[in-house]
């Protein structure tokens, strides 16, 4: 009898072991991934974390230097970002030199439907080591949920403050800690136009809003073509082009303080100032014959394809396209930025508000704390990291230590000039608002408003106000 019980006990133990082993086989991938994480951190933490804790951020580029001496050779860092196609080549031009110099294997993955897929991965415990994000609001949500590694905990902040202006450090911070490292800046307040055809027709770059609208009318009369290319289809991010317009116009029709209060919801979303901005916008968006393909095209043409009609064989089918400096990456093959199309500053509306600039920026977030990940984050904070992309064009670094002569040619030099002339700089409001507004109802409102061809503006703005989360 006693032997029997012994066997029974052993068998019971076996049951427990088997119960533990079963899920591992049932869902091998996740378990392996998680395990990789724990083993790698577990393995190296003992040696490096103690080191870095003593010296927390005392020497700049501590981990980067260790990586350059080959200390982390053979380790792996995963990077996710929304940069695909041509832009993927740009980011790879940044990451590859790091890989070659350190022997760290950097696995980059560019994702479509980026914000959604990234959230799914993070929630599912499958976060990359480093990920780019365009919305400071989204970054703060991750930080709030405790999913990010505070970069300011270990990096040399003196070096960061020497390289970045205060507002970028602030935008990357949540409750006093810096979680986001700004890497790429974008100016949104520019309008692309077909240089040659424009000059041939004898047009002049408009210096005010009224001139811009008048010229649009003249183009309709002169050529019978539509003056504007506008569209905002971008998967589950559809609508952001419209929000950019509202914001850019609001900066031109109201004091920057109103803009700030609007972002933080100290004034209602549908404040009369915002309604006025929307009405200005309607003068172009919903004017008959002003937009290529009309309101249906605005809602259904992919953002990257917006400007394609400007390069039509028989001459421009549209003459203006308001979009940030990355858009040439999406132009048809055989076109060149600065030659086939160049840009001018989106003109001021009311004199008293001068020349404001609406911008945006991408920051890096860190999800896992390993020495080789720290090394890559330190690398991305150096001016040198951005250099290949700067030279490829369409890239403005928020790092003030980047020498201006690196921006040798178009379009960077012109962007730098617009930046220098700016009276006000404001970050994209929809990226800073709470996600359910900034990436939800505000985008949705733009889609609905366009679908209704600009009617019911007040109701549309009201829906966004109603959707603002309480508290």
């Amino acid at each position, binding site marked *: 009898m006693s*032997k*029997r*019980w*012994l*066997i*029974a006990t*052993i*068998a*019971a133990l*076996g*049951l427990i*072991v*088997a*119960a533990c*082993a*079963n*899920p*591992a*086989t*049932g869902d*091998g991938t996740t*378990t*392996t991934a998680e*395990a*990789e994480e724990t*083993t790698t951190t577990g393995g190296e933490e003992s040696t490096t974390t103690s080191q870095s804790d003593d010296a927390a951020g005392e020497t700049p580029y501590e981990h980067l230097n260790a990586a350059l001496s080959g200390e982390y050779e053979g380790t792996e860092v995963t990077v996710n970002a929304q940069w695909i196609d041509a832009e993927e080549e740009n980011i790879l031009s940044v990451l590859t030199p790091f890989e070659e110099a350190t022997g760290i294997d950097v696995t980059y993955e560019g994702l479509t439907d980026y*914000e*959604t897929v990234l*959230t*799914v991965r993070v*929630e599912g415990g499958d976060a990359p080591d480093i990920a780019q994000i365009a919305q400071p609001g989204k970054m703060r*949500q991750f930080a709030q*949920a405790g999913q990010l590694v505070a970069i300011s905990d270990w990096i040399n902040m003196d070096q960061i403050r020497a390289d970045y202006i205060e507002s970028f450090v602030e935008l990357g911070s949540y409750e006093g800690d810096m979680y986001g490292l700004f890497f790429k800046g974008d100016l949104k307040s520019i309008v692309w136009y077909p240089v040659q055809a424009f000059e041939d027709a004898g047009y002049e770059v408009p210096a005010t809003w009224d001139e811009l609208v008048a010229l649009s009318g003249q183009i309709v009369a002169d050529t019978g073509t539509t003056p504007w290319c506008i569209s905002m289809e971008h*998967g*589950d991010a*559809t609508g952001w082009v419209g929000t950019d317009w509202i914001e850019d116009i609001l900066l031109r029709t109201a004091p920057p303080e109103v803009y700030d209060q609007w972002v933080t919801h100290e004034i209602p979303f549908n404040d009369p100032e915002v309604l006025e901005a929307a009405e200005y916008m309607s003068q172009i968006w919903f004017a008959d014959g002003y937009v*290529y*393909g*009309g309101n*249906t*095209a605005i*809602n*259904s*043409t992919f953002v990257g394809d917006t400007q394609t*009609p400007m390069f039509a064989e028989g001459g421009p*089918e549209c003459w203006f396209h308001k979009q940030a400096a990355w858009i040439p990456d999406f132009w048809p093959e055989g076109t060149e930025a600065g030659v086939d199309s160049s840009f001018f500053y989106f003109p001021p509306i009311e004199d008293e508000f001068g020349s404001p600039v609406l911008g945006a920026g991408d920051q890096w977030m860190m999800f896992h704390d390993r020495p080789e990940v720290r090394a890559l984050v330190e690398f991305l904070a150096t001016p040198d990291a951005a250099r290949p992309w700067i030279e490829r064009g369409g890239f403005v670094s928020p790092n003030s230590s980047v020498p201006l002569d690196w921006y040798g040619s178009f379009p960077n030099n012109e962007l730098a000039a617009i930046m220098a002339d700016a009276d006000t700089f404001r970050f994209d409001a929809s990226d800073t608002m709470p*996600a*359910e507004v900034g*990436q*939800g109802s505000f985008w*949705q409102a733009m*889609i609905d408003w366009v*679908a209704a061809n600009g009617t019911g503006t007040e109701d549309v703005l009201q*829906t966004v106000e109603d959707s603002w*989360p*309480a508290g």
Partner: protein
Amino acid sequence: MTTRRETAITRRGPLARGLLTGVGFVVAVGIVWLGVAILLDPGAVTRILVTTYEAIGLTGQAEAIASRGLQEGFVRLITSLFALLVGVGGVWLLYVSGNVLIEACPERVRPRLRPWLFILPAVILLGVYLVFPMVETIRLSLTEDGGFAGNFSFVFTDPAMRIAMRNNALWLLAGTSGSVVIGLAFAGLVDRVKREAFAKTFIFLPLAISAVGASVIWRFVYAWRPEGDEQVGMLNAVWTSLGNDAVPFLQTTPWNNLFLIVIMIWIQTGFAMVVLSAALKGVPTELVEAARIDGASERQLFFRVVIPSIRGSIITVATTIFIAILKVFDIVFVTTGGRFETEVIANRMFSEMFRFRNFGQASALAVVLLVVVIPIMVVNIRNLRRQGVGA
């Protein structure tokens, strides 16, 4: 297998039986442990190979592997081999040791315990992956965001949610009836063609395509381009070649909902047809013959004789499709993303959860779907049982 071993063990007496099980147990634990270790540590395969080569004297080989590493494909192969061993070993371990455990019990209770042992893994898996998330979802819907009142009033009063509710109702109505009616029609028709299998394959084919793939295809079918551009969408290419203006199908409210439902019908018709076609063949010939002799017209025959006799299958098909449509997500996500008033509950749930991170509101939506689906599932299961008994 088990029974034979059992008797063999029993015959050898308690000591031998204990030893044998003990050895088997140790071996199995070893395999599972090794397998788990390998699955957890990607470098293990290399290390084991190096050690093995060194042990049998092939130091050159060992060094080559240690310095150059292994091909990724090979490592994957080995890893999956061990995954297999862990799986099989683990299951073997579970059942054999469970069986031994039961053998140790008094004879009377064994038959009562054994079935429990065998369904235990399934119960645990269901508990971990189904029951626990369900309870957690209900908890979230009551505690997160606005609490019970806030979350559920959002579900039923938010203007965007009202559109989603309306659309889901439309989907259920048009989608289910469309799939069943068209599936039944095809089932009746292919019954009479010569190359039945061939015809059926074509209608069944869409079911083999994932809903995402199907939606991508249909997005091209419905595509719209501004006037003057080449119409890349099939429907608009045909439509404009007849001299009409291009129609933005996916933006034309409220008809765009119907265009999306067509995709679902396209996918589900094959399923309905296959099941109903099998049911049609099960209608006794005598019954049909008798009806014919009694002077029933073909129409009467179909509606009064055939349909009542396949009623069970029709209910099964309808409820299954109903459930599939209730949780429709991929088609909407891929084609319109819920824009242009095509939002549905499941898509909104996804947005609330993963885009806006409103876990409470997302969970409340999930709970509503769950509550709606329960009665349908009861009907479905009851019906299946009744059929099982009848057959």
